[in-house]
């Protein structure tokens, strides 16, 4: 009997910080964690999207 190998679905790694540098600018975008979002949003609202 052949071994059954489990394959993880390829999942894109989500960077915590994205730093974009151009010749004049440096922009740093920080990922907002799910925990942070849940803590900030009013609990009365339902997600729409």
């Amino acid at each position, binding site marked *: 009997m052949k071994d059954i190998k489990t394959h993880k679905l390829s999942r*894109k790694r*989500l*960077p915590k910080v*994205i730093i*974009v540098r*151009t010749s*004049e*600018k*440096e*922009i*740093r*975008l*920080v*990922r*907002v*964690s*799910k925990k942070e*979002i*849940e803590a*900030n*949003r*009013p609990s009365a*609202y339902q*997600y*729409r*999207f």
Partner: protein
Amino acid sequence: MFDTSFKFIHLGNFESNDSNIEKIIKFRFKTHKNNTYIVDVEKYKENVYIIKYYLKNHSLSENKYSLRTNENIAHKIFGTCLEIAQYLLEKDKKASFGYIGVNDITESKVNTKRYRIYKKISESFFNPDNFVHYQNDKNSLYLILNKYNKNINEEYIIKAISENFDVIL
């Protein structure tokens, strides 16, 4: 609070002089005071949509995004923008969104009042299971990237957007 909206009309798709922008999708809606607002949705590559709106009467002003209308209907305008986002998502399942909360004329560009409100709305309505949220308080820039779109190049998108805005170093 943001569940009410104005009925909007899709005016059509227009070309942009900017090579980063694939097209500009124009909408308009009228308020109860019969003021017309224009919503310009800039479609960047990789299905990123930047939503901008202004009062039609301000369209020739350099500060059209900064000017206040004092109609006290902001919640309904935000509700309309959410409806437009829904419309776009129905047409394009890979749609991601972004915005810059433009400063008032007397306000600095850092963590603006508009940005704080838009951020709250984004956190309230865009499920983090479906969208990745990125923020930059310094430039009042927020990106909501669709997890369904696996090929998205965040760096390219941010570069393209920042070229169109007066971004702080």
